């Protein structure tokens, strides 16, 4: 790598100097605005109103984006922004999972507002550099890198023509350029994407951290919704932050003692419990594969099935064989759940980097299920390779997996053929074809470009160009609002169908994962229970993204006595921990009720934002039947006993002598009606009209009845 040459080609376009200050109880009280069209850099105040109504993190992102765009703004207009914000609790080192950044932008996939939650060191270092949020707007003329030096108080926009696009190279080059010494690398974090983000709509963002032990750059992903595509559209190659001197008190918390006490209690809980519970410290999220496969929830062949006899080939023991397990594999300081696993010395077998040995981030559950089982592939080596290339090319593994699985089903049904795919034999299980599709995305060639449009646009294209039947494609195309499904089969859990369907940004499980409560433990028997769960859990989880926390230490480890508490699914002790650390940092005095109110404000605001952009009503919460029940005869018959007995029990139907088609139809009518009933119940619980619009009184009650918000709602009521 010729770093000197790359560096010499940099041309300074704009520079901004500021005096780095101390944080005040979790807030810098300033945000950084950068416009790469005009090469403008400025500081903006973070107001009391913002803190009161939006808290931070995703809340700040939504507020800034709301003010930047109009209903006519498209994702690739210069006005669209990418906002990165860590939240007031973000950057504390004592409590596990406190290094998350929240990213908000208009999505190329949905056309509406997207949020994505990501680890890596960027968010905390940005905040310690003096900024509660970074607002990036405009489109550069030529490729640029933005550099923030949080110690010196300097921000630069630099033309950067020579750096690689692919993240594993680009980020390393940037560490070489901006680190003064090898030891200085730990003080740097980079946001980047890769070559494919120029050609596809689900490009993602990598947030780096420097792994001092393995002497390698590590990448965590803001995967969902195509924000990497937006970054490339802005011709921003990367955003680099450098801040030296991370300590445990940089947030200037109101009550350091409480923070230390709560954090240490949690470290002890993980130390005592993780071995007996999820073993995240050695397996990361791969432990989920076996559970999902056992409970018929692991997506197989485009969500047709929930398990496969080969599921064990991609389960945790196979991953442990491949991992280089460290004891400090957290994505931020102090995360003792340590789930960010690593694979060392992996020799690439395909593509432009074939033959090279790399240190690469281990695939997580979603990736294993997405590019693996859902595409009918059960080979860990393929999954490692696909994960590496998705990361370096800037491809969201979930959208890639779900889209490829959809295309495979289309191919097997003759909706598309070899001629259309340019020779790719896209059968389920054909890993060479899947890999080639990925490489085509990076090159911007062939059928990879089509696949890069995502499920919704592929459906439209196949109907338009190849005369495919829209009904079948809508049944099997696993997307809602234009976003591809995350990797869980929701057929047997009505609540989870709602969790996916009614999620603000699209079918991602970070709003609600309620399958066990609903289907396995049967804790939500009535519609009222179901609606309550679909109110509480999305609000609770939203809160984590307002303050800068990771979801995993909430329920992937639980206190020993959790099962004996009144509401085990909520993990009451951990909820109290969160209240305590929020208060310890900010000096406020919230309780668990106020916590939910904080979320409700932002959640309803995001809902209204969807409406402002022309979405957000009931029709946009419609879900594909594949996520509700069996679409095909083959699918029905694979679980015939289950479905037959449901027809008997729930509908009193005599199934003997009935054809599968008749039974399919009856089951479908029943399940679709159940979903509509659920939607009614949830909207009511959330204080929305039957069309999914927040009522004025709801907005007033929550105190989010800002005039511009009310105006949008009034127009649509």
């Amino acid at each position, binding site marked *: 790598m010729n770093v000197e040459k790359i560096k010499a080609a940099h041309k300074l376009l704009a520079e901004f100097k500021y005096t780095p200050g101390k944080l005040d109880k979790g807030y810098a009280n300033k945000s950084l605005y950068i416009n790469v069209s005009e090469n403008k850099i400025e500081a903006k105040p973070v107001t009391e109103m913002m803190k009161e109504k939006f808290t931070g993190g995703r809340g700040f992102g939504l507020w800034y984006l709301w003010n930047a765009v109009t209903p006519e703004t498209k994702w690739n207009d210069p006005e669209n922004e990418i906002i990165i914000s860590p939240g007031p609790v973000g950057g504390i080192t004592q409590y596990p999972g406190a290094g998350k950044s929240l990213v908000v932008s208009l999505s190329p996939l949905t056309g509406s507002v997207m949020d994505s939650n990501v680890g890596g060191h960027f968010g905390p270092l940005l905040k310690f550099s003096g900024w509660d949020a970074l607002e990036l707007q405009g489109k550069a003329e030529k490729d640029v890198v933005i550099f923030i030096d949080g110690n010196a108080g300097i921000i630069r926009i630099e033309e950067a023509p020579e750096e690689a696009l692919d993240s594993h190279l680009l980020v390393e080059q940037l560490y070489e350029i901006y680190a003064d010494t090898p030891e200085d690398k730990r003080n740097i974090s980079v946001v980047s994407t890769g070559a494919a983000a120029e050609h596809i709509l689900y490009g993602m963002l990598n947030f780096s951290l420097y792994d001092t032990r393995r002497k390698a750059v590590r990448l965590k992903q803001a995967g969902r919704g195509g924000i990497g595509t937006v970054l490339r559209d802005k011709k921003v190659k990367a955003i680099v932050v450098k801040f030296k001197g991370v300590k*445990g008190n940089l947030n200037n918390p109101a009550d350091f003692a409480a923070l230390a006490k709560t954090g240490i209690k949690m470290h002890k809980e993980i130390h005592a419990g993780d071995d007996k519970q999820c073993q995240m410290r050695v397996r990361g999220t791969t432990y989920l594969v076996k559970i999902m496969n056992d409970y018929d929830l692991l997506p197989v062949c485009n969500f047709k099935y929930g398990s496969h006899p080969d599921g064990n080939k991609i389960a945790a023991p196979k991953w442990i064989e491949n991992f280089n397990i460290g004891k400090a594999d957290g994505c931020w300081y102090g995360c003792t759940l340590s789930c960010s696993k690593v694979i060392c010395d992996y020799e690439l077998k395909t593509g432009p980097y074939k033959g090279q040995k790399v240190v690469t981030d281990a695939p997580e559950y979603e990736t294993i299920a997405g590019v693996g089982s859902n595409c009918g592939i059960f080979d860990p080596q393929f999954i490692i390779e696909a994960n590496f290339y998705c990361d370096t090319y800037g491809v969201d593994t979930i959208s890639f997996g779900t889209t490829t699985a959809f295309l495979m089903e289309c191919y097997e049904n003759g909706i598309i053929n070899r001629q259309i795919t340019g020779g790719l034999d896209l059968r389920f299980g054909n890993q060479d074809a899947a890999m080639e599709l990925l490489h085509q995305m990076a090159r911007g060639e062939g059928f990879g470009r089509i696949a890069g449009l995502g499920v919704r646009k592929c459906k439209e294209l196949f109907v338009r160009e190849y005369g495919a039947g829209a009904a079948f494609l809508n049944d099997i195309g696993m997307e809602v609002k234009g976003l591809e499904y995350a990797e869980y089969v929701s057929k047997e859990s009505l609540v989870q169908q709602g969790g996916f369907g009614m999620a603000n940004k699209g079918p991602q499980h970070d709003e609600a994962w309620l399958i066990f409560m609903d289907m396995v433990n049967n804790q939500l028997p009535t519609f009222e229970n179901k609606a309550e769960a679909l109110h509480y859990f999305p609000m609770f989880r939203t809160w984590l993204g307002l303050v800068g926390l990771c979801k995993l230490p909430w329920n992937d480890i639980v206190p020993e006595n959790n099962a004996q508490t009144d509401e085990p699914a909520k993990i009451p002790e951990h909820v109290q921990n969160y209240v305590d650390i929020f208060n310890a940092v900010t000096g406020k005095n919230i309780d668990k009720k106020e916590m939910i109110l904080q979320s409700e404000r932002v959640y309803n605001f995001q809902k209204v934002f969807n409406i402002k952009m022309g979405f957000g009503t009931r029709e946009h919460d419609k879900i594909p039947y594949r996520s509700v029940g069996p679409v095909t005869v083959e699918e029905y018959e694979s679980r015939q006993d289950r479905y037959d007995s449901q027809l008997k029990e729930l509908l009193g139907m005599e199934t003997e002598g009935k054809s599968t088609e008749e039974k399919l139809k009856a089951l479908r009518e029943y399940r679709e009606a159940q979903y509509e009933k659920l939607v009614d119940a949830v909207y009511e619980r959330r204080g929305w009209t039957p069309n999914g619009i927040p009522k004025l009184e709801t907005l007033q009650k929550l105190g989010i009845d800002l005039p511009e918000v009310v105006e949008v709602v009034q127009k649509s009521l």
Partner: protein
Amino acid sequence: MKKLVTKEDSCTACGTCELVCSKTYFKEENREKACIRIETANGKSKITTCTQCGECIDLCPAEAIYRDKNGVVRIKKNLCAGCFACVGFCPEAAMFHHSDYIEPYKCIACGLCAKECPSGAISIEE
């Protein structure tokens, strides 16, 4: 390997060691700020201090903990990010913290407490 070894049977729980330690470390006589902790239960003493096992070394996300040339496990304060993971994970519960400080602290086998111990319950082993 240099370390402080303990004979709990000989300990009278006078607490001298704790005060010597906190005085040395933090210029203050305060047993809450010592790198050795004496507790009693049922008339028996329990002495908690670092065995220099080194479990915390690989656990530290900032690579701030290392073993020095005498085999003593030490903390580089300037690198410590104050996460207290080591406090929660120490098998001996001998990594201490006090909320007056943003870094944890531990026994570095200096031996000052052993010199002052009236009952020979603690000593330095090379």
